[in-house]
């Protein structure tokens, strides 16, 4: 059982009547990439802001590196690099100067600035004013700023915002190497499962302020259901039989789709039941992770 770097218990935040974060128990293990997922307005940013001490929690506790937050915020923040919502920057200064201000505040050597600029590939634009940067370049600068102090925990709120596909790919590789080669723990939020499922070890899904799933990505994969589709000659009677047996069935023309929550499906039994109605074709369809995500977050299937 690896140590938990971030652990919240009953974390709650209200804005008037609204409860954007409701009794959330987050558990981010050391050295893992934790994908914090949820649709727009689910409460991801609000949760992250509380972790960083930018917002006060109304109830619940936060422990990071085994210490209480915000009571030990200086000790904790020393080990945390973060990028929340939009990157922060001073537009009238160059990219280099922006990082220089941070490194002065963190008492770091200038050498570090060159290193992080190299990592996010901004070296050639370092001497330009940030107000002239593109959205993706500002995002890279924000990531560079988060990496500057060589954090043990990296908290990135929608880090691929505004990046082109090549940029997204680069950031993914960067995170994999930070976590796997340097042992950094990374908490990263996104509203797209597909954006994190290739790199995340752990997944937390938040919906309307509640954490509806938390655990390893494989466990989530195992939870996704399957659908068996049968084309039969006499669908009316077949449908009646299956419903009587307690299966979840939908009918479209002479197609019957039988879905099961669990991956194990009594296929043999189905074939035996449907045999008398003239099976013409059988097909097995897996639900996509994206569909599962939508089920969990109740965002429907509209695209």
């Amino acid at each position, binding site marked *: 059982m690896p140590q938990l770097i971030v652990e919240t218990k009953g974390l709650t935040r209200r804005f008037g009547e609204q409860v954007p974060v409701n009794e959330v128990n987050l558990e981010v293990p050391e050295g893992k990439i934790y994908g914090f997922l949820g649709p727009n307005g689910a409460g991801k940013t609000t949760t992250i802001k509380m972790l960083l001490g*930018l917002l006060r929690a109304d109830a619940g506790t936060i422990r990071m590196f085994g210490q209480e937050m915000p009571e030990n915020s200086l000790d904790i923040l020393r080990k945390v690099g973060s990028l929340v919502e939009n990157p922060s920057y001073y537009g009238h200064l160059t990219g280099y100067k922006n990082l220089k201000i941070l490194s002065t505040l963190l008492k770091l050597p200038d050498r570090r600035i060159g290193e992080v600029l190299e990592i996010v590939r901004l070296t050639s634009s370092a001497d330009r004013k940030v107000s002239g940067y593109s959205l993706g370049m500002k995002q890279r600068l924000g990531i560079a700023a988060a990496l500057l102090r060589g954090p043990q925990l990296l908290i990135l709120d929608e880090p691929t915002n505004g990046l082109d596909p090549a940029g997204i790919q680069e950031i993914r590789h960067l995170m994999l190497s930070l976590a796997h080669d340097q042992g950094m723990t990374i908490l990263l939020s996104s509203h797209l499962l597909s954006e994190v499922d290739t790199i995340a070890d752990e997944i937390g899904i938040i919906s309307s302020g509640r954490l509806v799933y938390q655990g390893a990505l494989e466990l989530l994969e195992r939870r996704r259901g399957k659908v068996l589709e049968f084309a039969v000659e006499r669908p009316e009677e077949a449908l009646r039989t299956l419903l009587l047996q307690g299966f979840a069935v939908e009918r479209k023309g002479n197609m019957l789709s039988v879905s099961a929550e669990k991956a194990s499906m009594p296929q043999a039994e189905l074939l035996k039941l449907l045999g008398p109605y003239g099976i013409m074709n059988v097909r097995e369809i897996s639900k996509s992770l994206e569909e599962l995500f939508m089920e969990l977050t109740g965002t429907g299937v509209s695209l």
Partner: protein
Amino acid sequence: MEYLMKAERMKLQYPLILILLLIGTLGTVMLGINSLNSENFAGFYVRGWKTFYLHMASFHGLFLYPLYAGVLASFICRYEHINGGWKQLFCLPVPRSRVYYAKLGTLMLLLGLIQLLFAGSYLLAGELLQLGNDLDVAELITGTVGGWLAILPFAALQLWVSMRLKSFVSSLILSASIVIANIVLTGLHASVGAWFPSTTAYYAMYPRGTALSPRLDVIPFILIVAATSAAYIWAGRRSLMRGAQL
């Protein structure tokens, strides 16, 4: 603390601030010379160093200096407001109270620079005008240093306001209107007027014992400046500790 102040200085928009300071200094000198030669005053005052100081100090203390305090306070908060600077500062392992003192310290440093420019331009212009030999160096030093110390409550008040108001323009309009009220407020006895922090630089800089000197008792005045400074520093620091900027 020094590294925080250093970081603050790196953020300043020097060209803009330099132009502002030069225009202001030039304006004060021109107005001083104008009053020196004006018919209205010529009857009361003899042309000389003392009279020149009186004219320059009254304009500077009454309008320009408090206005600078407001404008510069807005400047050093503006670049934090526009692109999430506060958020980044608050995520650093730096106590927020120190962030506040670094801002206030930077503001007072700039206001100190302005007093040096004031004294320097006074001496330079007076020399060029050949004002004679009644230069009172002690009065000049008391006036500039006293004015600098006395601007503290107003600087703290303006910093508090600028940290709260995201809009640059509204904080400028606010400081301008407060400064205009100075015409009336400085007519009051200092023990009343000094409670309004925009007036204190004028009270401190205007020479004592002339016909137009403000009525002022030194000890109560110092106590009022100290009390109002403490109050506005407390309020500004608290606002930052609570993260009202986010």
